[in-house]
């Protein structure tokens, strides 16, 4: 159940492109044709599926506060989390190179279709973003980390496929000259993002957790109001 929930959540609700704007650069640059978009999308799924679990291991056993405990009790106090950026990006860059070499060796046909996109991916924000969100959302097991990587990759794939199809069609439409190309792509992406927002209620509807959240926000609001009232009282007394 946990897996299914995370799967649909990362594809639709927290879609990388529409909810967090990750990987926009390649999303805009490589979405002119459906065939290239499919290639890049597949490469992103592939690389996310490899890098997120690897970075999860790094995070659990090296970077987190107290993660070095397996080395011995005297290392338990170390907190290396400030190193996460450099560790993650180095892992990603090496994994991308490694994947490229392995794919070239074992599946030349796959290499021919993915090959040119792999180096591009090392600097795609979606990949680093996947690892950073994995860290900040505190994903618990390596299975869930793999699931998160694959499903957010699929979300990205869907987004670039959709925009590429729309851009192929829109070439025959009469778009105002200054909007042609980049401008209209931005606006369409905005509209698509509005569409994807409607998935927001998908997993919270009738859920106990959602109700709890509501009550907590209500409490917070009440507390805020109380504070405001106090402030107002204070100011009035000062004025008097």
């Amino acid at each position, binding site marked *: 159940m946990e897996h299914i929930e995370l799967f649909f959540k990362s594809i639709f609700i927290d879609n990388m492109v*529409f*909810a*967090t*704007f*990750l*990987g*926009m*650069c390649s999303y*805009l*640059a490589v979405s002119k044709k459906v065939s290239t978009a499919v290639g890049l999308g597949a490469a992103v799924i592939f690389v996310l599926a490899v890098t997120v679990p690897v970075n999860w291991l790094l995070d659990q056993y090296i970077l987190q506060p107290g993660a070095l405990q397996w080395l011995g009790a005297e290392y338990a106090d170390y907190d290396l989390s*400030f*190193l*996460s*950026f*450099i560790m*993650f*990006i*180095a892992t990603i*860059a*090496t994994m991308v190179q490694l994947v490229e070499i392995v794919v070239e060796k074992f599946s030349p046909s796959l290499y021919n279709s993915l090959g040119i996109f792999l*180096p591009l991916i*090392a*600097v*795609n*924000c979606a*990949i*680093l*973003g996947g690892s*950073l*969100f994995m860290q*900040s959302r505190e994903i618990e097991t390596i299975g869930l980390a793999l699931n998160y990587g694959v499903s957010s990759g699929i979300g990205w794939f869907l987004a670039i496929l959709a925009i590429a199809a729309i851009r192929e069609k829109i070439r025959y439409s009469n778009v*105002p*000259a*200054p*909007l*042609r*190309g*980049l*401008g*209209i*792509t*931005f*606006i369409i*992406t*905005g*509209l698509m*993002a*509005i569409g994807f*927002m409607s998935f927001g209620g998908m997993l919270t509807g009738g859920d106990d957790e959602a109700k709890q959240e509501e009550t907590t926000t209500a409490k917070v609001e009440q507390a805020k109001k109380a504070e405001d009232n106090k402030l107002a009282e204070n100011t009035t007394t000062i004025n008097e």
Partner: protein
Amino acid sequence: MGLLSKKDAKLITDPLADNNPITIQVLGICSALAITAQLKASIVMSLSVLFVMGVGNVVISLIRNIIPSKIRIIVQLTVVAALVIIVDQVLKAYAYSLSKELSVFIGLIITNCIIMGRFEAFALANGPWRSFLDGIGNALGYAVILVIVGFFRELLGSGTLLGIKVLGDPIEKTGLYALGYENNGFMLLSPMALIVVGIIIWVQRSRNKDLIED
């Protein structure tokens, strides 16, 4: 400008408008969109990028002749990551709530395409001083768009600028709100960032016909 020759000054002024990194070169969009719901966050983000780009361009330009070209991407990423860690630690120390708000997006400066793009296109082929100017110019061009988007989204979305209620108080119905004005909460949601940038591109290209794509 006594300090800068005409050619050098162009390095700074060009990216501000006709060669803007976001609207023309299509670089660095990810972070530009995600954190612009408030003006303050946009400004902090711009300053961070300014620092990373200025220093990073100089460093890359200084070591450009000793980097083997095969591993240059990893070298560049390491340099940027080190600079971004500095920015992140400084923000965590002096502006903790803001750094929480920017969450992963400070980290994502590492893969901000502007930085890698300018390293590849400029710093690898030019001296440190010119690279520094190019970095500052492009970061300012990035900042201009971020501040414009942040300004409109915060003004129309929550009626404030930098947290100051410029349009009056929505609860006590003062200022504009007395006339029945309402905040457009939709501006705070992510899709509007895309549409605002789309409109900026539209305005810019209608004013300068050379930029129109066919």
